[in-house]
């Protein structure tokens, strides 16, 4: 899933300063699952902003809505009915950054504010803790690495083995982060695939990643 993190309340207050009528839009996709941008979080944020506004003598009118998915023009366009009935100074989207961009694309006269920081693609590793697993490099090779991604989970993205900086199985950047190369090694050993580690992995083709520019996937079989 895409993991998001609510922006600090001070940053949000600064962002909405001067706007009197606001719509907070949540998303029932990834950000609901990671407890940052679903219906519940929309409601909590709305209350917090209303209270803060009252406290500072700048009351703000806030409506709440949660869409099925903000990364889908079909659902985003459903906001049109609402916008026809009521005028909002700004929309705070609690989706990953795809959501506010879709809203901006759909409605050229509406100011859109990101309520979240989109932090990574990953998942929960224990209650209350999420970790990054994928960086969408565009060419998945994890089968060569015991099913783990060194591009993302090695701090240096090394493809030919570990650096010399890990200690007690942890990464040199932070002693709470596993050295993924230690994990890859242990798993390949268990699977009887250690010979994979001896392969010289050639320089990666980064043109398939964001380095090659914003990407598009074209499926002619699905095109109208």
């Amino acid at each position, binding site marked *: 899933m895409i993991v998001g993190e609510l922006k600090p309340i001070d940053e949000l207050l600064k962002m909405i300063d001067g706007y009197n009528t606001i719509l907070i839009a949540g998303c029932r996709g990834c950000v609901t699952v990671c407890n940052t941008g679903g219906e519940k979080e929309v409601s909590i944020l709305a209350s917090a902003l209303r209270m803060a506004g009252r406290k500072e003598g700048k009351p703000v009118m806030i409506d709440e809505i949660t869409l099925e998915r903000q990364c889908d023009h079909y659902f985003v366009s459903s906001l049109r009915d609402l916008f026809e009935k009521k005028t909002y100074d700004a929309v705070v989207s609690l989706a990953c950054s795809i959501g506010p961009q879709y809203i901006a694309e759909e409605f050229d006269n509406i100011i859109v504010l990101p309520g979240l920081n989109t932090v990574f693609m990953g998942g929960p590793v224990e209650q209350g803790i999420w970790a990054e697993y994928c960086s969408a490099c565009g060419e998945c090779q994890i089968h060569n690495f015991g099913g783990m991604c060194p591009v993302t989970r090695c*701090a*240096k*993205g*090394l*493809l*030919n*083995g*570990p*650096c*010399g*900086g*890990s*200690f*007690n*199985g942890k990464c*040199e*950047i*932070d002693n709470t982060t596993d050295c993924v*190369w*230690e994990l890859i*090694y242990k798993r390949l050993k268990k699977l009887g695939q*250690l010979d994979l*580690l*001896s392969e*010289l*992995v*050639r*320089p*990666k083709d*980064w043109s398939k990643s964001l380095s090659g520019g914003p990407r598009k996937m074209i499926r002619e079989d699905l095109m109208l």
Partner: protein
Amino acid sequence: MKSQTNLQTILGRGHFAVTCEVTPPLGANLDSISLIASELLGNVDAVNVNDNPSANVRMSSWAICKILLDSGIEPVMQMTTRDRNRIALQSDLLGASALDIKNVVCMTGDHPVKGDHPQAKKVFDLDSIQWIEAVKRIRDEGRLINGNKVEGIPGFFIGCVANPFVESQELHIIKLKKKVRAGAEFIQTQPVFDTKRFGIWLNMAKDHGITEKCYIIPGIIAIKSIGMAQYMSNNLPGIIIPDFVIDRLNGVPKDKQREEGIKICIDQIKELGDMKEVKGIHIMAPGPKANTAEIIERAGLLPRPQISKQSVE
């Protein structure tokens, strides 16, 4: 027929090589480099120049390499893949060759979050092995990573680094073998404090055929004080200082710790020099007042062999 570097010839002829390390200055003042150069001239075979060590900004490695060269000292240019992509690395390598900088150590480098610009974008387009292979390809085939031909094939003596004190030895030996396969001709190691543990690693390297293809040059550092030992243990990734070294330093009064550090260092050089597969020593204490020349002299490593400039392969 390509001319060999001084370091390459010394190792090739079976002499025990002596290299050391300097850190480029922070700023445009070259006084510290002049001081080090005059201290080291004639006392070492080659001098490594760090590439933004610990991910802290310093003057570029190639500039200091050129300055050393002009002072009569052969440089070893360290190149990390942390800050430059394959375009910049290959370009700088060709530039270095034009300046007659021919010893290159290819490494990945410490992560930027450990340095003085933790907000910097990391690069790591290549890893150390891919970079070693690229340098070898330029030298041996005259071709860039993309296969394009370069004009005038430069000669390089290619080195890499290794940490003998890691936990999963097997994993790291597999990687080291790949470095050698990719083209590394000499290995300078992280500082050795525990020579016995280093010996175990060296045997493992020998069993894997690394020592017959590659010169092993262990690193050492003279510790000047208990404070320095603690700082290194706590702040430098991959460095472990064993208790018996700390105990030796603690066993002397504070004003004698510097001298004790040098003595430990000299003892270590002798112990390492007795190991058949050790082909030289890399004295890593960078900066002025590092006592490098004193250590070299007291360890009986002078005079250094003189190689005529016309030496060819």
